[in-house]
């Protein structure tokens, strides 16, 4: 341990100076480090060594390259930081950042009071030092709010478009090692809000932002922060973009059926479509309404296919509740009329009964997934009963008794019995 934290911090910051395009950071255990170095020396020629130009030159000039190879690894714009140096590196980064922040604030106050008595360059120096150290700190401690805040302060004073874009780059980098970082996602929203009014290719930015979430979601399952960010983007989208996102996210959703976040995202996109269609007069035509109804029907069919293919997936059933609730509230009366009797038959409900029946049929199967499927189907039946207009509720109650759902729930999922009792009475 011949290197001090300050040395390590300098090395890290030099690597960033020499390779500003680094787009992925990770903490690497020392044992993996040797492997990384070996692999990269085998796979690369002499001009493309594992350690970047900057590290090499600092290393050789100080004559301890062996040690440094074990601290950082940088290749193809990827940066690995050894877990063995995290503590001294963090302490040094925090100290450097806090010192710079104090100076920056003191300077800011003085210049406010006395005017620009320091040469402009020293203010710039202080700013760039602050930006450098805050970046280092955030790569080690992703939710260090004060470091994010000082960057917002500097960037909002400068109001340069390129600086805003740099912030998007840094937060993406932080997200690459900490996909759930609340502050990094916040920071992105702050940047997007700040530039939304005067950004010429804002639509493109939204598209890229949405793609980033998808990329992150691939590695980080059911990431609430990431998907929340994607939902937030919808408020900036027009109908065309919403429809496009709906199309694009379908195949992803089908491959990640347990990820409720993506299904929620789709529900927001669908609602956005409905909302937009309500507003404009050209959409009032019955043809448009038929289109909407068809889109909803397609989504129901798609969901049904998935429910049958992936047995016992809660998220798919909950999504169906959302879809059918909307259907019941908006489209059911079209086909049914107002007089309900015990022989009443609505094509939508008939289809749902069929689906539920087929899922209940497998309840004797010993596999847990099939038992879950039966309980989800029973709960869905209860959901329909609660959602439909009152006269129909009786029809469904009778149907549920015939299916003997109460016994099913009592036997296989007793915790739900009181819920069922409440809604059946």
């Amino acid at each position, binding site marked *: 341990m011949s290197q001090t934290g300050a040395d390590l911090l300098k090395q890290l910051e030099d690597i960033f100076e020499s390779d500003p395009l680094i787009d992925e950071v990770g903490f690497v255990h020392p044992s993996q480090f040797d492997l990384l170095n070996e692999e990269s020396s085998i796979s690369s020629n002499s001009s493309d060594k594992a350690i970047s130009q900057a590290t090499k030159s600092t290393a050789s000039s100080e004559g301890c390259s062996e040690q440094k190879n074990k601290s950082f690894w940088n290749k193809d714009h990827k940066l690995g930081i050894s877990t063995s140096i995290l503590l001294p590196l963090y302490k040094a980064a925090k100290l450097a950042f806090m010192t710079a922040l104090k100076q920056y604030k003191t300077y800011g106050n003085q210049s406010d009071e006395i005017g620009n008595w320091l040469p402009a360059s020293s203010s710039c120096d202080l700013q760039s030092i602050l930006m450098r150290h805050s970046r280092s700190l955030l790569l*080690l401690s992703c939710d260090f*709010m004060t470091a994010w*805040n000082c960057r*917002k302060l500097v960037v909002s004073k400068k109001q340069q478009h390129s600086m805003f874009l740099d912030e998007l780059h840094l937060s993406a980098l932080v997200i690459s090692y900490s996909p759930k970082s609340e502050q990094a996602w916040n920071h992105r929203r702050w940047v997007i809000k700040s530039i939304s009014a005067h950004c010429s290719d804002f639509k493109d930015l939204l598209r890229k932002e949405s793609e980033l979430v998808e990329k992150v979601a691939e590695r980080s399952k059911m990431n609430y922060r990431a998907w929340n960010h994607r939902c*937030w983007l919808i408020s900036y989208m027009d109908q065309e973009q919403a429809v496009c996102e709906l199309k694009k996210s379908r195949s992803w959703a089908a491959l990640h059926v347990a990820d409720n976040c993506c299904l929620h995202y789709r529900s927001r996109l669908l609602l956005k479509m409905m909302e937009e269609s309500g507003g404009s007069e050209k959409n009032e035509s019955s043809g448009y309404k038929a289109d909407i109804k068809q889109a909803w029907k397609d989504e129901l069919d798609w969901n049904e296919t998935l429910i049958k293919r992936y047995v016992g997936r809660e*998220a798919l059933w909950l999504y169906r509740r959302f879809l059918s*609730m909307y259907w019941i509230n908006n489209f059911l009366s079209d086909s049914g009329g107002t007089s309900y009797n015990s022989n009443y038959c609505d094509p939508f409900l008939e289809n749902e009964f069929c689906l539920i029946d087929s899922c209940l049929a497998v309840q004797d199967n010993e596999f847990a997934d099939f038992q879950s499927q039966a309980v989800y189907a029973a709960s869905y039946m209860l959901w329909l009963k609660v959602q439909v207009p009152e006269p129909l509720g009786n029809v469904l109650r009778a149907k549920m008794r015939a299916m003997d759902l109460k016994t099913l729930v009592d036997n296989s999922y007793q915790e739900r019995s009181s819920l069922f009792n*409440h809604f059946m009475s």
Partner: protein
Amino acid sequence: MGELATDKHVKYILSVEKRKDDFESVVMEHLRMNGAYWGLTALDLMGKLDAVDVDEVVSWVMSCQHDSGGFGGNVGHDPHILYTLSAVQVLALFDKMDLIDSDKVTNIVGLQNEDGSFSGDMWGEVDTRFSYIAICCLSILHRLDRISVEKAVKYIISCKNMDGGFGCTPGGESHSGQIFCCVGALALTGSLDLVDKDLLGWWLCERQVKSGGLNGRPEKLPDVCYSWWVLSSLIMIDRVHWISKEKLTKFILDCQDKEKGGISDRPDDAVDVFHTYFGVAGLSLLEYPGLKPIDPAYALPVDVVNRIFFKK
């Protein structure tokens, strides 16, 4: 399953504060104020708050306050509403409310936006968590009249989803943590009649999985911290009889490290203060013997809440 290893947990909480030599603990220093609230409230629920040096803690808390009135997560850190509530709660635990300059802390009313929502700090991020925090904080300080409660409630209701749950902002996915905040805020403002209790209770009770633990969202693994958020919400809307309390108690007790103390998110995982607090708080709501009762909306021991409102 066994019993709650109270003494071990007390020891564990006290030891965490002294650990400063590994990356995992120093890297959390920016939210030390939250950590203090979790640890100290857990100690109080177990009747062991006297194990800490009051003056030391209180003077540290006060050193985190800024001129604006807000508190930072630690000394030298920017103020944020997240830490301000924790600071106020910690001072309430120690009956040191007189140290708070209420008018100054009440500056957080300035964080209310035109639509009734609350920002967390001057940088403007909006979240229903911040609505809860502002309302809880102002209520403890007897200053709820300083904000537009009507607008605040309206905003929270605008975050309600078709499944009965709530998200961070309008259109955000339902999440047990956000639901606790929204239901808590509505409870504190006497607006629970605006909640569809059957619908929300349904969603919440479906968070209980076979092991007895509760998850935060569909398809997620059960987790002790969600046991608190779901359970307290169910209690506030009077639907707690829709889950099995016995199974939940067993799940939390199974998450204890019975040798070294502390509670983890799931059985056999590593313990931390966060889950230790939520585990103890959950058991308190479940009326586990030997624990002080906790208030589901203020997330403070009931005797502390009574002191705040009946001492004046």
